[in-house]
């Protein structure tokens, strides 16, 4: 016990006393560790940004899109399928799900009534697709019971109404002859310049105020698509179960299930991570070589000291371990500095500017990357210490004292 503690104390003393030499030798190691951990963290943030973007389009992983269709059936079947969806969600304990129906609704605008693209959804879609309006808010469950329809529209629609923000509590008249006034509660940024006016409304409101046009006549969807966020390991099984449930409830209907497992940023994540490890590893190798070089010179410089320590009763094992530990202690300290630098750099990254929309869930600093960086630094220290430690052990005590 005292041998180990003594060797560590001795190694730390050496590092402390030769701090300038150590500092110079270890800049490379610290930089390499900072590179490995910093780039890994940045890659994770980038991957998160890509993932969130993908989830805005396709939903979180894994999102099932269940689409039932039939060329012969009528609205009665559609009601049964809708009821079956509700049953399935309860039966399989699916927490987040939304019916989604793409449609077009007549909206009275200052320049006349226009048909506007609308998505009838449930509030959960906001969670599934990470929808965060630029102004106002997304739907909540309480909105379902409101006395008037509520809308989340894009900037183009708000502009078409003649408003620029929500401060005037703008409304829109939906429907043709029997119109209903809807309150705009949120505004989404246009996804591209010149985007057509569009918006979201709650599926239940579509039905309650009978806003739904004759979809069959328009060649549109008869029943909404069910969008469900499910655990990845259950995605396939749940897709199959819901399909069979719907088909049992509405014979003759076809059910398509597709999910978003193919997308995502796993490829980018993996490639970038390997590039980071490659570049960082190479830098670490260079830092290690520099450390070997300086350690060898230092051992030559310290031959007399090693001889004196042998006269104190330092065994050759202790001398070997001591010199090795100096290198390890130094590189671990450098690794720690590198990790701190990486954390500081990552914290200083302007996420909003770099990743556009910013991150909803900023990934925590990758502790695993920091640990890997530290371990790599320690390993490089050990490897870099073996050669000088071997040289130190071969020093003849008598010659060393006379040196």
């Amino acid at each position, binding site marked *: 016990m*005292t*041998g180990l*503690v*003594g060797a560590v*104390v*001795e190694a730390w*003393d050496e590092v402390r*006393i*030769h701090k300038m030499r150590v500092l110079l030798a270890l800049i490379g190691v610290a930089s390499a560790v900072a590179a490995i951990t910093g780039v890994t963290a940045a890659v994770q943030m980038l991957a998160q940004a890509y993932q969130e973007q993908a989830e805005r389009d396709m939903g979180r992983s894994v999102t099932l899109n269940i689409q039932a269709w039939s060329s012969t059936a009528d609205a009665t079947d559609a009601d049964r399928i809708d009821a079956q969806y509700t049953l399935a969600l309860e039966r399989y304990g699916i927490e987040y799900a939304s019916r989604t129906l793409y449609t077009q609704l007549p909206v009275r605008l200052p320049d006349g009534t226009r048909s506007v693209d609308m998505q009838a959804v449930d509030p959960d879609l906001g969670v599934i697709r990470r929808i965060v309006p630029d102004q106002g808010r997304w739907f909540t469950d309480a909105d379902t019971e409101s006395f008037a329809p509520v809308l989340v529209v894009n900037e183009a629609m708000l502009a078409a109404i003649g408003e620029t923000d929500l401060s005037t509590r703008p409304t829109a008249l939906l429907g043709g002859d029997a119109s209903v006034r809807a309150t705009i509660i949120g505004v989404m940024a246009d996804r591209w310049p010149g985007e057509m006016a569009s918006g979201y409304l709650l599926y239940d409101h579509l039905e309650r105020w009978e806003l739904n046009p004759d979809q069959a006549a328009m060649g549109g969807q008869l029943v909404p698509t069910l969008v469900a966020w499910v655990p990845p390991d259950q995605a396939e099984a749940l897709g199959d179960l819901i399909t069979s449930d719907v088909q049992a409830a509405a014979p003759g209907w076809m059910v398509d299930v597709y999910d978003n497992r193919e997308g995502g940023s796993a490829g980018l994540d993996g490639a970038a991570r390997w590039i980071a490890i490659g570049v960082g590893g190479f830098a670490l190798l260079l830092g290690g070589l520099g450390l070997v070089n300086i350690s060898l010179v230092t051992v030559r410089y310290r031959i*007399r*000291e090693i001889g*004196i*320590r*042998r*006269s*104190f*009763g*330092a*065994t*050759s*094992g*202790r001398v070997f371990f001591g010199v090795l530990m100096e290198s390890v202690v130094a590189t671990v300290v450098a690794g720690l500095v590198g990790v701190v630098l990486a954390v500081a750099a990552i914290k200083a990254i302007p996420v909003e500017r770099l990743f556009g929309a910013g991150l909803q869930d900023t990934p925590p600093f990758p502790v695993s990357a920091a640990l890997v960086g530290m371990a790599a630094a320690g390993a490089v220290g050990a490897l870099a210490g073996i050669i000088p430690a071997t040289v130190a052990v071969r020093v003849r*005590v*008598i010659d060393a*004292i*006379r040196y």
Partner: protein
Amino acid sequence: MSAMIELADVTRSVRLPDDRMLHILRGVDLRVDEGEHVAVVGRSGTGKSTLLNILGLLDSPTTGQYLLEGVPAHSLSQRTRTRRRGRDFGFVFQQFQLLPGRTALENVAAPLLYATGRQFWSRSRLAAQMLDRVGLGDRVATMPDKLSGGEQQRVAIARALVRGPRVILADEPTGALDVETGSEVMDLLDEIAAQTGAALVTITHDLAVAARADRQFRLADGVLVPVAIDAATADWVGDVPMGRPVVADRSAATERRLPAVSP
């Protein structure tokens, strides 16, 4: 009763690059008992340091036997020899050999890094006590290069004694000091050795230093012979021109004419 250390017919030879053998020590017999002060005098290159290295388990005899408390040293494993060297021997070198960049306290505490138990964990306190004992209690945080030669040697003595060795091996302890400081350092070494009961083996070319010992030996051409040095004569030597015989043993005059042998 076994001697603390005992050499019996010890030789030490090395092979030179031209394949000739150089005989550094020839048939050396020496017995040092606990608490005894023994001095070995001799010219440079006569094998004094080699003898000290063998005594301190830093080197091994080519032939002959070295008994450490009655146990043949060659029967001890390398690890045991190293441990006993750290525990039982304290070295004082001519050039002090303090560790650079470390304070006086850290230097004195350095041997305790290789100790175990209480000595290891209390090393700073023990080192401070030992520095206080050699009169440097107020210089614990001073770097060696800020100390005078005498003070540096005191630190070296404190370091040699901090583990409570049973044998102190002093190689020219006053060699780098002026006469007055050298005398003070020897007073201190004698005093502490007497207090701790440690045997003291002093290698020196200074007859005044050698005269302090209980027994004196002269090493010439690798041969160790007992001599008697009169303390009064040694004191008087200081004013004698070089070249005059100064030791009571008449053979010392011969020694001065012997060619130096490089070990």
